């Protein structure tokens, strides 16, 4: 670490310091990934993950408020590919990330883009940076666009993991949510996917749907349990403002199950998935030991990530252009056309660029780490504070935190702070207290 004084006489920590501190994270992360351990000693390299957003869908789901647009024939895939590649290059050149541990194609429906998208991005990544060997390359897919032949092509293009959105096995609900597939298609697509990517298929399921009863959910869940691979993402249907679902709920056309029922559904799912050997490793994610999604874990543990494509977010350390470097958060233009225009014009589609203070980062990391069963480890904590986590908690003697620990919502041991299973259910309620206690009191 070097403390220097900049031209205005304000002391600043040099970029070197950031490099150094980040290598701690690097080392920790590498522990779970033995292949890359050898590289962690290289202080000038920094790992990160890449997210590629494909904003088009064949059909729009009623509940979705993501940045997505209906597929049109006028859309020029090749043009999108080249814009994505261009944006990747320019963001990469600004960011200090040099190595990628995972790439995730999300959307929208990226499987609609075809293997060409994966090829183009992977080519660019390996040309301009390092893609770790054995890196996770995950693709989101809908049953309707995940035909056997296509899946093979995707695998050939470099995809190693598939996330399949079957969402439900109830045809009425699928129709109600305006999904473009039936439960049968979903089941078949899941079988096909497992045959192509054995051990690396995630199944997306939505619960808490309008009109869904606990009993129906239990039956559905046992069917799901019988066909899934090593990973399940389980989401509660949230009514997001401005979606067709929100309109129909507001007008009384559809009614959501009540909170208590939904909570019971969730608790039942946790139990039944764990019985099937799928361990909850994050609030909504379940996997067999060793099959957790590395890409997702990287978000929750506060790693750098670069997002490309319309509406994508990024978080990374900037390359030190002058004396020191910022940790920044960017958000891209949402609308594909204006995003593409910006990319062509200035190299990237960034509309919002914010400097994240150390404290803000800490708050984010606390909030996301505690969603995982791994929790807030000493290693992660040490990136933000010199004082050991255990000592800090002991010294500040915060009333609320003490209560949460006593009530066994949280568990503190020599390796870090974790949310207990009772705590996980109510985490959103606890987080504001935890974040105010552990984050610095004065936020900027």
């Amino acid at each position, binding site marked *: 670490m070097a403390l220097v004084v900049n031209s205005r006489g304000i002391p600043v920590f040099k970029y070197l310091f950031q490099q150094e501190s980040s290598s701690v994270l690097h080392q920790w992360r590498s522990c779970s990934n033995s292949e890359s351990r050898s590289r962690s000693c290289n202080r000038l390299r920094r790992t990160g993950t890449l997210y590629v957003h494909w904003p088009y869908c064949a059909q729009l789901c009623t509940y979705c408020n993501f940045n997505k647009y209906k597929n049109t024939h006028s859309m020029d895939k090749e043009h999108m590919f080249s814009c994505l590649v261009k944006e990747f290059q320019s963001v990469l050149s600004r960011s200090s990330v040099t190595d990628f541990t995972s790439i995730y194609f999300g959307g929208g429906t990226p499987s609609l883009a075809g293997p060409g998208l994966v090829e183009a991005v992977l080519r660019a990544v390996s040309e301009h940076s390092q893609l770790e060997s054995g890196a996770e390359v995950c693709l989101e897919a809908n049953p309707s666009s995940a035909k056997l032949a296509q899946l093979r092509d995707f695998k050939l293009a470099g995809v190693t993991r598939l996330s399949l959105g079957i969402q439900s096995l109830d045809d009425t609900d699928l129709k109600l949510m305006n999904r473009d597939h039936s439960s049968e298609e979903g089941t078949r697509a899941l079988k096909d996917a497992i045959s192509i990517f054995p051990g690396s298929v995630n199944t997306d399921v939505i619960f808490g749907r309008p009109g869904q009863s606990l009993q129906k959910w239990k039956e559905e869940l046992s069917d799901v349990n019988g066909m899934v691979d090593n990973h399940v993402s389980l989401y509660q249907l949230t009514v997001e403002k401005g979606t067709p679902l929100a309109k129909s709920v507001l007008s009384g056309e559809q009614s959501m199950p009540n909170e208590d029922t939904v909570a019971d559904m969730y608790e039942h799912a946790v139990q039944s998935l764990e019985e099937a050997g799928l361990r909850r490793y994050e609030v909504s994610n379940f996997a067999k030991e060793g099959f957790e999604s590395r890409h997702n874990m990287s978000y929750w543990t506060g790693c750098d*990530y670069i997002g490309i494509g319309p509406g994508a977010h990024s978080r990374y350390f900037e390359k030190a252009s002058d004396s020191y470097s910022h940790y920044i958060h960017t958000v891209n233009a949402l609308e594909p056309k204006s995003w593409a225009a910006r990319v062509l014009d200035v190299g990237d589609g960034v509309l919002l660029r914010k400097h994240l203070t150390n404290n803000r980062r800490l708050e984010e990391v606390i909030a996301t780490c505690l969603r995982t069963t791994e929790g807030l480890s000493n290693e992660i904590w040490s990136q933000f504070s010199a004082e050991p986590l255990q000592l800090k908690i002991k010294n500040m003697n915060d009333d609320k935190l003490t209560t949460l620990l006593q009530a066994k919502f949280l568990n503190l041991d020599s390796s870090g702070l974790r949310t207990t299973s009772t705590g996980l259910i109510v985490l959103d309620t606890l987080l504001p207290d935890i974040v105010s206690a552990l984050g610095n009191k004065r936020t900027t």
Partner: protein
Amino acid sequence: MDVVRFFRLLRNSVSPGYLKSHVVLQQLATFVRRFHGVHVGSLPPERIRNFGIIAHVDHGKSTLADRLLESTGVIDPNISNQQVLDRLPVERERGITVKAQTATMFYQMQRGGMFMMNLIDTPGHVDFSYEVSRSLAACQGVLLVVDGQQGVQAQTVANFLLASEAGLTVIPVINKIDLSHADIPKVTEQMRNAFGFNEADIIQVSAKIGTGIPQLLPAIVERVPSPPGIPSASLRMLLFDSWFNHYKGVVCLVAIVDGCVSKGDVVQSAHTGLSYEVAEVGILQTKEVKSYSLHTGQVGYMMMGMKNVKDAFIGDTFHHAGTQITPLPGFTRAKPMVFAGVFPMDSNDFPYLRTAVDKLALNDSSVSVYPDSSVALGQGWRLGFLGLLHMDVFRQRLEEEYDASVIVTSPSVSYKAILRTGEEVVILTPSQFPARHTVEKYLEPVVLGTLVCPLEYLGKMLNLSESRRGMQQEMLYLDETRVLLKYIMPLSEVVLDFYDAVKSESSGYASFDYEDFGFQPASLVKVDLLLNQNPVDALAVVVHEDKAFAMAKTLCEKLKNVIHRVKALRKNVTAKCYGGDITRKMKLLRKQKEGKLRLKVINNVELSKEAFVRIIRK
């Protein structure tokens, strides 16, 4: 120069007809004001009339006062005078009079010379019944004003009773006769039934347009007796109002019952025994007008370097230091009936609010102030008020005159307990509630309520009153359409929302008023509310046994709706939280975090201040 000499001078120089005209009277008034020092000594008690005006809210009392002041030239009729005597913004806004104001008028009878007419304005609400009774004690007669459209109302009755108990001459006046809906014969009948007036005695006026006003002053001179005092006796004066002047200290309004007081006299309070040197005396017009002395029967102000309005007890008798006199009857200390907690909305505002409360309490000796603190609301006060309106007015004055944002808790009353040891304990807050086994009996304050309503609402009013543990005392048909009811009712039932209930059940047609009726035994219990198995002080209430269950149930229901239940917040946990979602999640979190700062944790249950306020406010 003395007013009468000035008058003689005028009479000698101009014709009597000219003299009668308003112009001269105005000139006289202007002269008196400009001269700033009148000698009113040579007006004997026979030439003095002290009278008040009593009326139900909105029946036009203050407007009538304005017309009287205009016709005697105290105020300029050319300027639109709006309720000159109501000085506080809250008074004008609500159309009520909180602080009694007084004005002296000089009235020239057509045949019979000059009269000093002291209009002693009374507070318009029976919340202030003690003040009213003291103001009335300074009068020998009152104008009882009834709205020609609305007729006799509850407060009319209550006021009439106060006046007739005080032995005053009552001059019945029907106001607003210009209104197209005014029903004079019906109101006349009501006044005959309720008060026994003769139709011939009732004066019909329209204060708004001035009809009938010229008949009023002669009627007062003729019907109201002159003050009965003895000029040669030792000084006795009645203090009937006071306020605080920032520069001059406490200003007292006094009625000289016997004798005479002059600047420089040393006077003594019969109640406190404290002596003061009179710094200034004078009469009140729209503002203070100095004079050399005040004589028997006269009413005026007095400043004597009193520092604290709390030393000026309404109803106190003052006399010359060293003389032995019998104090005037009727003195009691202002007794708070209704209590409420007052807390700053933001606890940082406490020092400012303290200044504001102190200043207001300085100007209103009937507010009693006890420090209080609450787990949820921090430091504050428990204030005692004369009644609900008094409380409301106080709150409004805090907010308007001091721009303070306050939480006023639901009003309560003070109970008493007679212990087995014979000791009497006053219970102001639930925390003072003595354990049942130590108590011989509990007492609760009761009031005598007067309800006037149209016949069609009689059933509803009877039900309502019974449900509030009322005991009927009287039912009187004022005319074929209106009924007057009298109930003895626990004050605790009245303070909650009885008034609102009366108004809503009768579509606003019924009126209600009450006066203190002492204490009566009651089975009282304390209801504790437990949060996470621990009682919360701030939520405890003392109620009548019969009401305990219902009260507890309502409170629990309210609590259930406002408590931040952990279970209720499950739903967001399972929302996605990936790359872009983190931003959204953090935004939400930050918002929650800010919200948390405003939450109070009571026994591990979080209660937002707003939620808390919603429970304890009425």
